[in-house]
């Protein structure tokens, strides 16, 4: 053996294996290419998805959520582990290429990494390999010993995924080990032969292995070197080809998935991308009924899921024992794809998804709260898929009986209760209220710049009507020239759309858009976050929309609203973020600022707040249909408030109010917990001009009489 002078010059120890290594390269690369090609097949058959716009914004997402691993630390331990692993992988990429090439081209030097740069890089990679290896060990221990709850697989969804996870983690550890052994053996060999030794980072894995090998014979080192190289190459290619068969496929697909992630918030995908509303009747089938009805991006989502369970861990439906667990929506679909689009042979029979892969109740269980999407580090989308599956069920006439009535009522009366249109503005006619705060209807005779869009719950539910009155009083107090649409207003259709009845939604939307345009209003205010979200994201070409909490917050700044001190200083308040105000529209601070501006008001934060707020259960026509569950979401939420030490829950959504007040009764906490809407509280605490006429917010509750009386 000739002595080698330069550390970067490869020894001829690998020479004998050159053909073998080349063969493995070829097999590995062609295998991987074939596998990826087969994985792309279903995507080619899928529905289109328009994700090629706004490249800068998309790159931004890749940088934020990919490179900066933005969402990972939400689960501290696993998040930090993953950041290290990811960083380690990034550092090791170039090294990996180098090691692979070295087996066939012995004198290979990575361009740009000869000399000093190369040394520095090698130090980095030594530590990277060590860190990754350690993380693997920790991860395996977590899986086997600590068993975090979110990884568990409920019986109905099959066997635990632990074995597979541990196997993959172990393989990566082996890869790091092989790589380190490779470096260690070479360094040891160089030392023994008196050559310049490639410096190994102190206390790194290769460094430690080198000390173990220090006393081995040269021929032993040669074998270890060769063996480590082979092990590395085989493990590398095995992992490369194995990853597309499981959760680790996210290594390849994640950056793409982040790039193609949804850019708009709060809205639902159209029935068919590229098909305008007017041409929808040409579409033969609405929604997702078979696997191929998903878009290619949704299929990419299925591939990209890392099975981390964070979505299901935050899903309120899952928490109350409903059949839905978002994680398994994805993994079941992925397994379906793998099974029905095999590596060899034709794609097999395409069954309907509902009834085979998913149960109806599983899909009806979702309240569209968005907690899953908020949590997912890979930006996997759920709401669009569930809405699409619902569209498919509705297209087939498969709607739970208890929901057919409100849908029919929405069609004929424009509200889910079936109440008369002409009574929609009755909330404003309560005797006392009408005298102090007349609300005008923008019917062509009356005009105003601001439209207060009330929506159905506030208009008809006799408890929620007080939110309407409070909101009107606030607008009146700040001198806003406003009006309502009255009987011309129909339900915003927000829940209808997320329920999957797109045609009915479009009818409601078109009617409302015409009415809003006819009113001439230049600004829209609403106290209902569902209406807010619909008007802002589902409707197009409307004047700007604000939620009442935003209005109150800005009028606090302007000084038009000042607050009196709270009556009872012992009350402890907590704010419950409504899903469609908070998570979907990211309005977290305005309502809190309003509460904090009330003198003497003690406020605490629940452990699940802001973007981790726990849904009250009100979304998706949930007031008319409940899947089987162990406990109600509202009840869980009310208990959370009590745990935080509060006895008053403040919310800013009539759906939330319905569920929370109900839950207080069901949980047996009447007398210990009360709920109040932000608008009601504001109206109650607002300092009025004249000191004499201090209406203490005694609002007359108007009973909706049983039909016929």
């Amino acid at each position: 053996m000739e002595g080698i002078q330069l550390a970067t010059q490869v020894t001829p120890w690998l020479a004998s294996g050159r053909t073998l290594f080349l063969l493995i390269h070829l097999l590995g690369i062609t295998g991987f290419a074939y596998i990826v090609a087969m994985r792309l097949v279903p995507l080619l058959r899928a529905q289109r998805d328009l994700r090629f716009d706004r490249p800068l914004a998309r790159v931004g997402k890749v940088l934020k959520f990919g490179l900066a691993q933005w969402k990972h630390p939400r689960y501290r331990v696993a998040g930090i582990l993953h950041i290290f692993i990811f960083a380690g992988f990034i550092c090791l990429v170039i090294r990996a290429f180098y090691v692979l090439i070295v087996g066939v081209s012995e004198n290979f030097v990575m361009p740009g990494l000869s000399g000093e740069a190369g040394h520095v890089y090698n130090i980095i990679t030594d530590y990277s390999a060590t860190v990754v290896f350690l993380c693997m060990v920790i991860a395996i221990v977590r899986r086997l010993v600590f068993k975090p709850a979110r990884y568990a697989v409920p019986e109905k969804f099959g066997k635990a995924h632990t074995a597979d996870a541990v196997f993959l983690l172990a393989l990566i550890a082996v890869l790091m080990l092989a790589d380190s052994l490779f470096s260690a053996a070479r360094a040891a060999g160089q030392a023994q032969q008196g050559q310049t030794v490639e410096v190994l980072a102190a206390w790194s894995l290769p460094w430690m292995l080198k000390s173990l090998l220090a006393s081995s014979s040269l021929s032993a080192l040669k074998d270890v070197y060769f063996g480590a190289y082979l092990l590395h190459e085989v493990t590398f290619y095995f992992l490369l080809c194995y990853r597309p068969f499981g959760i680790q496929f996210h290594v390849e697909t994640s950056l793409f998935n982040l790039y193609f992630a949804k850019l708009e918030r709060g809205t639902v995908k159209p029935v068919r991308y590229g098909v305008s509303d007017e041409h929808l009747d040409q579409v033969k089938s609405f929604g997702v009924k078979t696997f191929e009805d998903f878009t290619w991006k949704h299929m990419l989502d299925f591939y990209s899921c890392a099975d981390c369970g964070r979505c299901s861990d935050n899903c309120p439906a899952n928490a109350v024992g409903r059949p839905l667990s978002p994680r398994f929506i994805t993994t079941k679909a992925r397994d379906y794809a793998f099974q029905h689009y095999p590596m060899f042979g034709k794609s097999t029979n395409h069954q309907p998804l509902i009834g085979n892969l998913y149960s109806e109740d599983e899909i009806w269980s979702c309240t569209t709260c968005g907690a899953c999407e908020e949590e997912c580090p890979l930006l996997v989308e759920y709401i669009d898929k569930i809405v699409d599956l619902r569209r498919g069920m509705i297209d087939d006439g498969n709607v739970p009986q208890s929901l057919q009535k409100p849908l029919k009522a929405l069609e004929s009366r424009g509200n889910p209760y079936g109440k008369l249109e002409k009574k929609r503005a009755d909330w404003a006619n309560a005797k006392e209220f009408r005298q102090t705060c007349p609300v005008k209807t923008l019917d062509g005779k009356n005009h105003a710049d601001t439209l207060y869009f009330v929506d159905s719950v506030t208009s008809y539910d006799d408890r929620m009507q007080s939110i309407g009155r409070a909101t009107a009083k606030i607008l009146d107090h700040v001198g806003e020239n406003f009006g309502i649409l009255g009987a011309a207003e129909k339900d915003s259709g927000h829940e209808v759309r997320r329920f999957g009845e797109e045609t009915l939604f479009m009818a409601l939307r078109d009617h409302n858009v015409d009415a809003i345009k006819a009113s001439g209003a230049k600004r829209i205010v609403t106290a209902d976050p569902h209406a807010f979200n619909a008007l802002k994201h589902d409707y197009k070409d409307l004047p700007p929309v604000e939620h009442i909490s935003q209005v109150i917050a800005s009028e606090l700044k302007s000084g038009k609203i000042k607050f009196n001190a709270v009556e009872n200083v012992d009350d402890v308040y907590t704010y419950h973020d409504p899903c469609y105000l908070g998570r979907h529209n990211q309005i977290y601070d305005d309502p809190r600022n309003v509460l904090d501006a009330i003198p003497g008001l003690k406020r605490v934060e629940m452990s699940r707040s802001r973007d981790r707020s726990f849904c009250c259960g009100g979304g998706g026509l949930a007031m008319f249909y409940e899947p089987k569950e162990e406990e109600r979401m509202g009840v869980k939420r009310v208990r959370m408030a009590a745990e935080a030490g509060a006895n008053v829950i403040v919310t800013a959504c009539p759906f939330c109010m319905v569920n929370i007040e109900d839950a207080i009764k069901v949980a047996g906490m009447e007398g210990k917990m009360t709920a109040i809407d932000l608008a009601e509280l504001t109206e109650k605490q607002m300092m009025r001009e004249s000191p004499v006429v201090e209406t203490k917010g005694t609002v007359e509750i108007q009973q909706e009489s049983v039909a016929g009386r």
Partner: protein
Amino acid sequence: MEILVCARRVPDTSENEITLNSAGNDIERDELVYSVNEPDNYAVEEALQIVAKAGGNVTVVTVGGEDDEEILRREMAMGAHHGVLISDEAFSGSDGRGIATILKTFVQKGNYDLVLTGVQAEDGGAQVGGMLAAMLDYPFASLVNSIEVLDGRKLKIGREIAGGNREISEIDLPCVLSIQTGINEPRYVGMRGIRAVASVPIPTYGVSELGIDPGAVGEAAARVKRVDYFLPQLGKGAEMLEGSREEVIDKLVELVAAKGGLK
């Protein structure tokens, strides 16, 4: 199996508040929402389920005018194969027997194995099905809440009787059945489905197509006529019962019995 379902368009009782008009001679019809009579909808769903298993066609027929076409379309959006409108000036003002007479001539024009009606409509008559069967000399069963097709031109049916019990009988085809709500879970018909059948042609049958004697139907032939509508006594808020518990119970029992609350 050729199945005919006789349906009717009625003011939807759950989405309307029924009040008298200002003249006091009819209910206020201006803002009424109409839909297919609920038991008739269950009948169509049942018919669709039967032909899904046994093969055949479902035809939905209604006696009325142009406005009534919409329920035919709705049932066709649900899956009915044919919709037929029976309309003629001569038919207006018919009482239940008149309607049954009209339907009888239509049934005899076709070759139906099974004729279904809903148990009753908004007027609570519960008559057309039974009358139709007697006119056709077909066997009849009312309040049917289960149907099973047997071999040999027979059905096994369940009827709803007192106490939630079910009376099981065998009935020969062809027959007439009046269907009770709850027999099945009707499939949902969305706006999209209804739009899809919006322009399907619907044949109209009048006096000449049916070959019916106009003297036998219509207002002149009607023996039962509604004279007016009026509102029953209304109460404002609850009448609170006072007195000892025994007195209260006595009074309550009397009131409830008068309303038909005791069996």
